[in-house]
C-alpha cells in the first residue's frame, strides 16, 4: 500500500480547505477505530489522510434550547457526561454499548456518523433524539437532520470537501416524563456489532404517550424511524396491548437483510421484541 500523505490541521477551516483542495482522494480520520483497520486491510487507500485529532471539537455545550456536541466527542464522554446521562440518556446508553472501553475512549460521534454503518449504535440514538448535524465546507456551513445525512451503508450526503463539525440535540419541551432506552442484540453481550438495535424516546403526560420516536438500527440500509409504530403509539396509553401492536408494526417497517450475523426473519423478530421492551418500559 502506498503511504498516504498526512495532514493534522489545527482548525476546522484548514481541515475543510485540505479536504476540498485534495478532492476525492482525501479521507478524514477521527478516532480511527474503523478507518485504521480499513487502512491496514487495504479496504481504504486514500492519497491523503486528514487527521482531525487536533480540531477543537471535543466539547459538550449547553446552548439553552439545544445541546451542541463537537464531532470529536468520544463515546466515553457521552456515557459519562452528566447532562447527556440525564437529558439524552438514550445516547449515553448507546455509547456505553458501542464496543469496548478501549474503543469508547477513541470512537467519536462524528466518526460514527461519517462511517455510516447501518448498525451504528450512537447514530441510532441520534435518530431518536431528532439530532441535526452541522456540516462545514470552505463555502460555508449547513445543518441537516441526521436522517438526511445517512444515505446507505457507508454512504452519506456529505459533499466533497465537507466535514462533520457538530451535532445538535434539541431540548424537548418541558412537561410530562421522558423515557429513553437503547437496546441491542448481537452475538454476545459485550463488544459486538448489533444485529438489531432500537433507540426509543417517548414523552408521557397524564398516562398518555404524547410523542414517541422509535429508531431501528441494523435492519435497513440506514437507521430508520418506525413511523407507523410511532403513529400507533402516539395518543395511546402504554400497556401490553399497545406494545405488541406497535412492535408488530415496527417489525413490518424494518427492511432487514440476511447476512453472516443473522437472517432477516430473526432480525425482524428481535426488532419487534426490542420495540415492545421500550414501550413496556413506558408502561411501568
Amino acid at each position, binding site marked *: 500500500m502506498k503511504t498516504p500523505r498526512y495532514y493534522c490541521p489545527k482548525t476546522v477551516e484548514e481541515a475543510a480547505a485540505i479536504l476540498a483542495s485534495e478532492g476525492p482522494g482525501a479521507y478524514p480520520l477521527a478516532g480511527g477505530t474503523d478507518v485504521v483497520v480499513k487502512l491496514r486491510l487495504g479496504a481504504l487507500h486514500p492519497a491523503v489522510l486528514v487527521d482531525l485529532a487536533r480540531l477543537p471539537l471535543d466539547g459538550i455545550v449547553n446552548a439553552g434550547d439545544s445541546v451542541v456536541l463537537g464531532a470529536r466527542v468520544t463515546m466515553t464522554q457521552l456515557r459519562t457526561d452528566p447532562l447527556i446521562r440525564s437529558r439524552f440518556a438514550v445516547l449515553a446508553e448507546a455509547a456505553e454499548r458501542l464496543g469496548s*472501553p478501549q474503543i469508547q475512549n477513541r470512537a467519536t460521534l462524528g466518526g460514527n456518523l461519517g462511517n455510516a454503518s447501518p448498525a451504528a449504535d450512537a447514530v441510532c440514538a441520534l435518530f431518536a433524539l431528532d439530532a441535526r448535524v452541522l456540516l462545514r465546507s470552505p463555502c460555508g456551513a449547513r445543518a441537516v437532520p441526521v436522517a438526511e445525512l445517512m444515505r446507505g451503508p457507508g454512504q452519506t450526503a456529505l459533499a466533497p470537501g465537507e466535514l462533520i463539525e457538530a451535532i445538535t440535540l434539541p431540548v424537548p419541551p418541558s412537561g410530562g416524563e421522558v423515557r429513553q432506552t437503547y437496546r441491542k442484540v448481537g452475538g454476545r453481550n459485550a463488544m459486538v456489532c448489533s444485529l438489531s438495535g432500537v433507540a426509543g424516546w417517548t414523552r408521557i403526560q397524564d398516562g398518555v404517550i404524547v410523542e414517541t420516536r422509535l429508531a431501528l438500527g441494523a435492519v435497513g440500509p440506514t437507521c430508520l424511524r418506525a413511523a407507523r409504530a410511532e403513529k400507533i403509539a402516539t395518543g395511546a396509553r402504554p400497556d401490553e396491548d399497545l406494545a405488541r401492536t406497535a412492535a408488530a408494526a415496527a417489525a413490518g417497517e424494518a427492511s432487514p437483510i440476511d447476512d453472516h450475523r443473522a437472517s432477516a426473519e430473526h432480525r425482524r423478530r428481535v426488532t419487534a421484541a426490542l420495540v415492545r421492551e421500550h414501550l413496556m418500559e413506558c408502561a411501568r
Partner: protein
Amino acid sequence: MSPTEPLTLVVNGRPVTPLASPTTRLLDYLRTELGLTGTKEGCGAGECGACTVLLDGRPVNACLVLLGSVAGRTVTTIEGLSDGAGGLHPVQQAFVDAGAVQCGFCTPGAVLTAAAFVDAGNDYSAAAARAALSGNLCRCTGYAKILQAVERAVAGRREAP
C-alpha cells in the same frame, strides 16, 4: 501539523521524536522503533485488547491509533507501569498473587486496563470490573482469576495509607 513539522510524544515518561511516519500505527512504532515488545498484537482490529496501552491514562487499542494522532500526548506501556526501580504496580502484584496469568499473551493489556480501572478510584463490583475488562480477551484463564486480581488491587488501595 504539516508533513514537515516534527512529531513528539511522551512514552513511559520519556519524550520521544519518532523516525517513523505519522501514519504508522502506534503499536508498530512501540514494538519496532522503541523495542517495547510487551505490547502485543492479537487481532489487529480492536477486538482483543492485547495491544492495550494507556493514552493520557485511559486504555486504548494501540493497533487502532496512528502515531500522528497522539502528538504531544502521553503513552504508558506495560514496561512503564511499574515504578522504574523494579517494584511492581499494585495491579501487577495482584495478578501475581491471584495467579491471573497463564500463557501471558493478554496479560500486558489486561494489566494496563485493570490498572486504569483501579487507579481511577473505582470501587470493585464484578459487574463494573467485567465491563471495564470487556475489551481484553483471554483464552486461558476463564477470567475468574483476573477479576480476583482486580478485587485484590482495589482492596489493597483502600488499605494503603
